[in-house]
């Protein structure tokens, strides 16, 4: 319901500049609305604006200046009549401004040369709310003047000439100089009537319906600097996570749209960047990627590039190195780093054993990306270095001829990388705050690709409260694993050897606290060299012996009577054991990823955890990521956003369509990372490995037709098929061969690789003309063309389409904004957006829509082109 009301409202607002919506309900309480004062402040400080805007980043003390901003932009001009002439810009016209100007002048002069840098979101929010409150009151009271003012506002909206825009712009930047308390302190007795048009907008803006999506939409479509600036401030009031979804849109607007929009967004971006390393890097990467379509000469001086440089220069670091809060932390860190060496087994012994000089040198080297200084210019460095090395590996792998060589090289490169971990680095695809502590390099695998070398790595991370401030975990050497590896070894190893017998409890203890490393350990160490040798001897002779006894032989040792076993039992156990191992894929040097991806995720996590020296820590988690080099992931990101949007639309409308948007990180226009879909292998791999039809494979994996497991898997399959069929249709996803469709362990299909969407398709003789891929194999899994499940599939599609249609704007908006300034192939031609819009079929009735779905499905089932395309792929790429 909420949306149903919301979107028409948006539409009508945008379309009807001149049409007057009926004034809202009235009331008669006296107004405190103080808009007239705002122009005055603007005029007063216009002189300072140019300077302050240039260096406002470095300004710190004048937050309040900025926060007053919305008050200025929102209210309509003082006098409706005056506003109709372009020259009558509000600031010059207000006689009442004089009082305000004095005080604002003072503060603005003070702020000159210092400027303001970081906006406190809370203050911004408060400012927004204040304005809204006032507008509300005013709306309630005044009905009549509103008409007049409204007209003025409209005219201003319609005919702002270049000059006035410029002035408005200046005014924007000026607003900071307006002191906070002013509006409420000086109620204007002759407040001018406000425009009902504006109040309409305001009512919308303040309403609960006004979400980030709408904000972005207005930001993009409104030409009114006031509105843009208002939204720029309003962004502060949304939860970070919601705005983050639209970060590509925001940044693309920042890069490619006019200055007003940029100026409106900029404070928000700056604020977020200074608050978060993650946000900084994401922004910097995206800015780089979206700027890349510009001509090289303009690119260099574009605002996007400049902002990117600013972010990467790390001048936005909120904590200067001399700040009192950061220095003790740094100190503590370095202390704990020093101790990390000694908290392991034979703690103090290390001091005698390893050369302190060596350590010092090593520390220096590793500081390059691991043990970083907490503040200062190094803030972004570790993560950037980390990502850079991952991408470099990808580039180097691409030069190797065979998959096997690539995988081997990958493993060796990663093992080198491992030396520098743990460090203050994180995987940007993850939800939680964490530090990367280890890359289990032998698990990494090169993915199938013709000439690039995308690869998947598994990454062990330790969760933490705050990635930026929590101490970096202490390094635990690889070999330390043995002590914690299995319970059976624990006892004897603790007893027998001093050098690796630390139990996990010990280690956790020393890891989480700051251990005192100085006196005791060292004193102990210097004396006990002799003792150590004794221990070493003891260890070599005893430690693992006990563990070698198997259960069987111990029992046989205890009972003196001979134990007899049947040869048949041994043979039977062998075949049973083999049968019980889950259907693993065979190892194939040409397709190393198949085995790695087929292994159930939980299984993999357990296995890696067992083998990891960090596995015993309760904060341990395993993540995975695909690193892509030489591929432009911007389209993938766009597709991800659309999928996410549709997913939430369907959830909201309670349509049980299933899709799995996977996260995309764009690092540049030709590199990035992808969040892998867990427990999923491609249909191609399924076929090649199992040599079964899809239906038979389902039966093999989930059980026979009537079992619960099969039915669940079948339902999952249908729901995901319906979801992706719609996606494929709406987005015109092409290149749908079986290598690009995954099947997960629950029976869902997942489409990957959105390299050909919207206006682009692979240059291949017009294959894939059908709306989406629906092979007879798919239909078989659904139970045939006449089955219930197939009807369910069609019904789901219809429901999904109706739901999507209802929220079309939300989808369109994402695509439309990204088209701005983009040279991506999916935007090729002029009709991309129009065609996309057409595919929502707004004009059709539901009956007609149903017919359409029938036609689409029918066409796809019949289409021989999918079949042709598959065989084409088989011939050219060996994909089954």
């Amino acid at each position, binding site marked *: 319901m909420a949306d149903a009301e919301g979107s028409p409202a948006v539409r009508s607002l945008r379309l009807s500049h001149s049409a007057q919506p009926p004034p809202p309900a009235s009331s008669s309480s006296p107004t405190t609305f103080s808009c007239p004062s705002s122009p005055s402040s603007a005029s007063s400080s216009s002189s300072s604006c140019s300077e302050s805007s240039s260096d406002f980043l470095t300004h710190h003390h004048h937050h309040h200046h900025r926060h007053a901003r919305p008050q200025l932009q929102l209210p309509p001009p003082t006098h409706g009549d005056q506003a109709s002439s372009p020259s009558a810009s509000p600031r010059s016209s207000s006689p009442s401004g004089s009082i305000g100007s004095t005080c604002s002048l003072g503060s603005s002069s003070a702020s000159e040369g210092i400027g303001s840098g970081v906006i406190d979101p809370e203050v911004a929010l408060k400012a927004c709310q204040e304005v809204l409150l006032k507008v509300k009151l005013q709306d309630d009271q005044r009905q009549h003047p509103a008409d007049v003012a409204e007209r003025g506002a409209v005219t201003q909206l319609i005919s702002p000439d270049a000059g006035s825009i410029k002035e408005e712009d200046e005014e924007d930047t000026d607003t900071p100089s307006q002191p906070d308390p002013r509006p409420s302190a000086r109620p204007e007795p002759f407040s001018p009537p406000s425009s009902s048009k504006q109040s309409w907008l305001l009512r919308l803006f303040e309403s609960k319906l006004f979400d980030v999506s709408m904000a972005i939409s207005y930001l993009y479509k409104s030409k009114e600097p006031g509105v843009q600036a208002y939204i720029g401030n309003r962004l502060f009031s949304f939860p970070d996570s919601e705005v983050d979804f639209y970060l590509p849109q925001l940044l693309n607007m920042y890069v490619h749209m006019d200055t007003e929009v940029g100026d409106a967004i900029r404070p928000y971006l700056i604020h977020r960047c200074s608050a978060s390393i993650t946000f900084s890097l994401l922004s910097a990467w995206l800015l780089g990627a979206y700027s890349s379509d510009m001509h090289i000469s303009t690119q260099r001086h574009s605002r996007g590039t400049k902002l990117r440089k600013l972010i990467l220069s790390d001048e936005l670091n909120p904590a200067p190195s001399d700040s009192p809060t950061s220095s003790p932390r740094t100190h503590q860190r370095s202390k704990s780093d020093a101790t990390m060496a000694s908290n392991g087994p034979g703690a103090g012994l290390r001091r005698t054993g390893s050369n302190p000089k060596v350590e010092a040198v090593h520390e220096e080297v590793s500081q390059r990306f691991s043990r970083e200084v907490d503040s200062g210019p190094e803030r972004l460095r570790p993560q950037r270095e980390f990502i850079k090395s991952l991408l470099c590996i990808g580039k180097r792998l691409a030069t190797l001829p065979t998959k096997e060589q690539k995988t081997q090289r990958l493993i060796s490169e990663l093992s080198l990388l491992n030396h520098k971990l743990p460090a203050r680095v994180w995987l940007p695809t993850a939800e939680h705050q964490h530090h990367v502590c280890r890359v289990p390099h032998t*698990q990494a695998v090169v993915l199938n690709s013709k000439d690039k070398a995308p690869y998947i790595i598994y990454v062990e991370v330790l969760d933490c409260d705050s990635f930026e401030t929590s101490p970096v975990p202490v390094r635990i050497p690889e070999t330390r694993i043995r002590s914690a590896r299995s319970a059976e070894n624990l006892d004897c190893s603790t007893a027998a050897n001093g050098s690796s017998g630390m139990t996990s409890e010990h280690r956790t203890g020393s890891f989480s606290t700051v251990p005192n490393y100085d006196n005791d350990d060292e004193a102990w160490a210097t004396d006990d060299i002799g003792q150590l040798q004794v221990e070493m001897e003891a260890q070599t002779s005893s430690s693992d012996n006990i*563990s070698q006894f198997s259960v069987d032989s111990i029992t046989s040792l205890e009972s003196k009577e001979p134990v007899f076993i049947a040869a048949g039992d041994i043979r039977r156990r062998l075949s049973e054991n083999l049968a019980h191992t889950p259907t693993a894929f065979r190892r194939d040097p040409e397709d190393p990823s198949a085995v790695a991806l087929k292994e159930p995720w939980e299984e993999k996590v357990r296995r890696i955890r067992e083998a990891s020296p960090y596995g015993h820590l309760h904060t341990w988690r395993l993540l995975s990521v695909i690193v892509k080099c030489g591929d432009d992931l911007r389209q993938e990101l766009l597709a991800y956003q659309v999928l996410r949007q549709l997913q939430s639309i369907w959830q909201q409308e309670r349509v049980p369509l299933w899709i799995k948007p996977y996260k995309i990180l764009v690092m540049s226009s030709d590199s990035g990372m992808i969040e892998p879909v867990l427990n999923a292998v491609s249909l191609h791999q399924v076929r090649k490995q199992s040599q079964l039809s899809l239906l038979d494979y389902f039966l093999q994996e989930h059980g026979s037709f009537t079992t619960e497991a099969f039915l669940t898997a079948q339902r999952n399959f249908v729901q995901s098929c319906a979801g992706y069929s719609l996606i494929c249709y709406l987005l015109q996803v092409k290149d749908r061969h079986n290598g690009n469709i995954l099947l997960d362990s629950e029976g869902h299909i997942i489409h990957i690789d959105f390299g050909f969407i919207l206006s682009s398709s692979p240059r291949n003789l017009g294959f894939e003309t059908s709306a989406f891929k629906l092979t007879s194999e798919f239909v078989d899994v659904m139970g045939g063309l006449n089955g219930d499940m197939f009807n369910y599939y069609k019904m789901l599609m219809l429901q999904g389409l109706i739901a999507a249609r209802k929220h079309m704007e939300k989808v369109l908006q994402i695509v439309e904004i990204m088209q701005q300034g983009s040279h991506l192939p999916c935007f090729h031609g002029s009709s991309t957006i129009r065609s996309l819009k057409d595919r929502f079929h707004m004009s059709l009735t539901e009956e007609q829509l149903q017919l359409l779905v029938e036609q689409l499905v029918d066409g796809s089932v019949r289409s021989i082109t999918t079949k042709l395309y598959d065989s084409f792929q088989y011939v050219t790429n060996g994909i089954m």
Partner: protein
Amino acid sequence: MSQVEKKAGLLRRTSSSKKPLKEKVVLMYDEIFAKEDPAKNNPRFWDELFLMKVNLEYLESKLESVDGEDVQRIQDNINSLFHHCVQALGEEHQIKVVNALQTLCALFRGVHQKNKSASGFDIINMLMGFDKAEQRMKDLMERLDSLLCGDSSESLKSLCLKLLLCLVTVTDNISQNTILEYVMINSIFEAILQILSDASSRGQHGYDAVVLLALLVNYRKYESVNPYIVKLSIVDDEPTLDGMGMVVHQALTEYNRQYKDKEEENQGGFFSTLTSMVGSMFIADADEKLSVQTNEAILLALYEAVHLNRNFITVLAQSHPEIDIAATPTTTTPTTPTTPLGTTPPSLDMMSNPELPLDPNLQTSNLLITFLKYASIVMQDTKDEHRLNSARLCLIILTCIAEDQYADAFLHDDNMNFRVSLHRMPMRHRKKAVDKNIPSRPLVCAVLDLMVEFIVTHMMKDFPMDLYLRCVQIIHKLLCYQKKCRIRLHYTWRELWSALINLLKFLLSNETTLLAKHNIFHLALLVVNLFNMFITYGDTFLPTSNSYDELYYEIVRMHQVFDNLYCMVLRVSTNTGQWKEAASKVTHALVNVRAIINHFNPKIESYAAVNHISQLSEEQVLEVVRSNYDTLTLKLQDGLDQFERYSEQPKEAAFFKELVREREGGLF
């Protein structure tokens, strides 16, 4: 510089032969060997001495020629020379430092040459004087340490290491070198580590540093507490350990490459055989020696690292691209052995490159792979004592590796597949395997291949019993790990089985000759117990159910061997003699194998009779086996999956003492 050197050499030679025109430095040496204190007349004597270029030959010969009585007379002056050498090491002037280092080297060597029989204390007395020895050596070690760790020039560091190597190898038996006691007290371990941890210094001095470390660790290993052992055992700094691994890797790779080149040369067809024959007629066997000479010092270092340091195991699996030095143009000038030590390190310029080189033709390798290849070469020929010892050391290292859980983990890691091309001895009855077709498999397969290869190729009259025992034990340890961790390795176990059966056959047919020297029953017991492992615990680690059938098939097929073995051990165990005990153990161990044979043989015969087939096919026998399991009862034997852990002392102590002695005499 070298030209000057040459000139000086020429000059010297001519001058010494014709007229007694002596260099100034020689005159100064003469002064030292006079009674008087040389500084008495010339207070700047020592200052000047170290500005002169050292004449090593003269100084050494002078020292050697000192008569017993003279010793007393000139001891003060030699003490003084030593003292001033040490002092000069602290000089800013590099020339002085270099000269002092060389002079020290000559002193150590000269004194030892002269006093081969003398006790260590006499030597110390002569060099430093008893009362001052401690202080002098402390100063010397401190100076060397600071030179090695400071930012002095690379050649200076190199010279420091050479001096240390000279000191360490100056006696035939390292443990008799009493001066080293001071090197124990004043450790330079940290300096060695630092060299290894830094890529560039490792590239230049890594080889010397590793050899030095290996030797120091072996100083009085068993008699006293050697701090180097203790320190090496607890190093856990990864870059350092990696560095050490790199040096070893590099040296072994270089050896493998040389061997391969030589092999290819020999196989290059008729013409090349001819030329090499002609060539070898002219060129002395120096070249030959080089290629045969094994890098035992490096191997010893690898052993010590693997044996002593738990953390080093990770380094074994650390991948490096295989560095093929032949492929890259060697820019390094031929390293002339400037020192008398003769340790020519392989060109290490690749190692200083921290970035992995980007050559698509490079196979990724790691230390373990290189070591396995090396071992496969060394094990081919164990005829002379020297190489036998190398092979033994290789097997000892493998034993340590097979016992280590972490090493086992990566040996069996399914994700770490490699193609390891082992060298196989060319034999008449088999074709040389084509390298290209080696499948990519977990590393443990290569280890097993190597063991099988050894078993197959060393059944000779001069039976290397010790090596066989180690070999079979390594296999056993690997099986124990697989059983414990339920790892089903896709390995063609059949090759192993038939190799083991052939070994038993060989033992049987050479019983009398072998029994004269060895306890063949111990080996037979180990081999039979390997079969028992497969029979009793096959369900936990065999890859397919078929492989269990094949095991039975192989035993039944070769039942003659087991029958004969049983007869033999029964005979020996019923007689009274020294082998009674050992033989009876084998009879007990054979119980299940015999049960299998006795159970299936009649079944197979009757199957053949019923179906009127004279020769059963493999498939038919397997069918019989499959259908008759249920009536067969086996006995669970004790301790099949237990093994004695490797320990150097006391069993191997003699070997290592011998090895170190041989090393110093033979190699340096």
